[in-house]
């Protein structure tokens, strides 16, 4: 019988991708839930699919698990093409948002299920269950029924059950979505620790950008069935590839601009009534924009500075202070510029103390990202 391949059966080096997705398309009727997605994830990496509701995260995950049949494209896990493999022969495990623990089985029976299906011996299964319960710090709940455990405990059991058969890949579809905020924060850390300790490749789905930022090695930002950008959290935060990514990850000031002139490695932007020179390298897209193109200057609130700390070459915006919020050592300011732009800034409290009604906000060319103006909502073919 064709048993599922599990991680330790494979002679895979760390350099081989745990999963490779090639031009995956999933159509429902004529609507593309997943629209030409390609993705490589290395072994042992924690990758997050992040995007708004309905952007195709679950569909992509279900295509990897085999619950959704891709219309086109290929899914390769641990070097094996599993595009047409039945779900129960795939070397991937899934953690569901509602945990989907078997209610009529004890915790131990739940965890043992995957190993049993692989035909392991009783002794091996018992040992594996013990290890898993240890791993999730619940060594004593083996004989209880899932209904008698708290949400956080159930969540960890679901994780243990998925890890027990030693999958090449662990898929997690909003596994923390059902938990309250405090528990959620704790489980984020715990999940991350378990991922490090086991060295497993995690494909994690969330629509919570903070969760994605705090947990992931890599983030794939999705929109309308496509991946807009993939990269490390800092990279996505500092160098968003599109206006959508900039707006979705963290707070951002998005200031409209037009390209006035280009030379070899500098760009002149017409922005807020001024001509402003920035390095062409600050354009995060691959292609340098043409003269006249509509762009957006992305400035993070913490990169908006108060005039006194200004340097030559900064963009200067005179603005009226509308509102302030104290965040411990820092203050968050809501402002409206003379040009009518709404701005947010985060400054140190001591700087704010000297602030007047009208302030000059500055940002340095080194701290901004320049992206193409949003094309509006993409419509699917």
């Amino acid at each position, binding site marked *: 019988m064709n048993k*599922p391949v599990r991680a330790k059966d494979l002679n895979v080096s760390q350099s081989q991708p745990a999963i490779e997705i090639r031009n995956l398309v999933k159509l429902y009727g004529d609507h593309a839930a997943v629209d030409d997605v390609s993705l490589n994830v290395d072994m042992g990496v924690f990758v997050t699919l992040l995007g708004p509701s309905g952007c195709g995260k679950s569909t992509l995950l279900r295509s990897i*698990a*085999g*619950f959704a049949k891709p219309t086109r494209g290929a899914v390769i896990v641990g070097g094996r093409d599993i595009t047409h493999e*039945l*779900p*129960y*022969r*795939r070397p*991937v*495990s*899934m953690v*569901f948002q*509602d945990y*989907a*623990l*078997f*209610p*009529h*089985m004890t915790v131990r029976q739940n965890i043992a*299920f*995957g190993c049993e*299906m*692989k035909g392991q011996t009783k002794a091996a299964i018992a040992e594996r269950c013990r290890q898993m319960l240890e791993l999730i710090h619940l060594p004593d709940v083996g004989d209880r*029924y899932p*209904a008698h455990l708290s949400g956080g405990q159930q969540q960890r059991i679901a994780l243990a*059950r*998925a890890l027990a*058969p030693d999958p090449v890949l662990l898929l997690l579809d909003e596994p923390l979505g059902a938990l309250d905020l405090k528990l959620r924060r704790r489980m984020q850390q715990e999940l991350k620790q378990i991922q490090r300790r086991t060295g497993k490749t995690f494909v994690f789905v969330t629509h919570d950008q903070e969760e994605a930022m705090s947990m992931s090695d890599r983030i794939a930002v999705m929109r309308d069935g496509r991946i807009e950008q993939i990269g490390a959290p800092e990279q996505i935060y500092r160098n968003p590839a599109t206006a959508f990514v900039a707006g979705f990850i963290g707070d951002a000031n998005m200031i409209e601009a037009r390209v006035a002139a280009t030379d070899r490695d500098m760009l002149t932007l017409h922005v807020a009534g001024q001509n402003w020179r920035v390095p062409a390298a600050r354009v995060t897209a691959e292609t340098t924009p043409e003269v006249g193109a509509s762009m957006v200057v992305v400035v993070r609130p913490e990169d908006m500075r108060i005039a006194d700390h200004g340097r030559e070459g900064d963009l200067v915006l005179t603005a009226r202070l509308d509102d302030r919020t104290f965040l411990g050592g820092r203050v968050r300011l809501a402002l409206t510029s003379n040009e009518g732009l709404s701005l947010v800034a985060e400054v140190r409290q001591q700087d704010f103390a000297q602030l007047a009604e009208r302030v000059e906000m500055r940002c340095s060319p080194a701290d901004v990202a320049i992206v193409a103006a949003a094309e509006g909502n993409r419509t699917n073919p």
Partner: protein
Amino acid sequence: MNRIPTAALPIWFWLFVAYLFLPLVVMAAMGFRDSNFIAFPIQQWTTGWYRSVLADEEILSALWVSAQVAVYSTTVAIAVGLPMSFVFARTRGPMRALMIAAIVLPAFLPVIVSAIAIRMFLGHLGLETGIAAISFGHAIGSVPFVVIMILTRLNAMSSNLADAARNLGADDVIVVTRIVLPFLAPALFGAMMFCLLLSFEDFVRSFFLGGVDPTFPVLLFARLRFGFDPGLAAISTIVLIASTALGLFAERHIRRRNMGR
């Protein structure tokens, strides 16, 4: 103002309980009366009626017929209702409502109408009345309850449960035998008990579809024509106790099975 109804409520409750149970108690007591007639007060007591009932060949044979019919009709009802529930659970939209309406309709039909209809239908097909006919008649009446009970449970099952099992390496057969059926077990057991009792107590269908061997209720009815005697009270009491015991056992069992949820 609130005081009067509050004080009256427990009284109403106990009056109602008395109304429910007094006839039963009287009936049970009558079985011990040492006389050929049903009357109060009981002057002389005997266990003779109870003993003679348990030795009455006709009664034992009728109980046996009823038991067979109960088991056969329950088997058929589950065999038909279970797969049907799976189909319904999978169907969406107006088709689902239509299918469920079609299958549940017999539950609202006057029993006598459906019994006569089946009788005529059997006559057309040239089929015999008897145990088989009664069993199928009962099964038709039970299927709606089987479907409703199993479907309710099935709807409470996360669709991810089967996917989770498949994801862990279970093929379709294992998903059904290890996940779906155990999950449905309490509903299945409840439906079974319900079918057994429904069949055992049915008179109308058994009467119209029965052959020479009467079921237990039909036999009781036949005997009634010779008047009430303490023997009837004795049999009825035994049946009452047996079915109550079965009902309580089923209820307890279902509750225990449901605990795992």
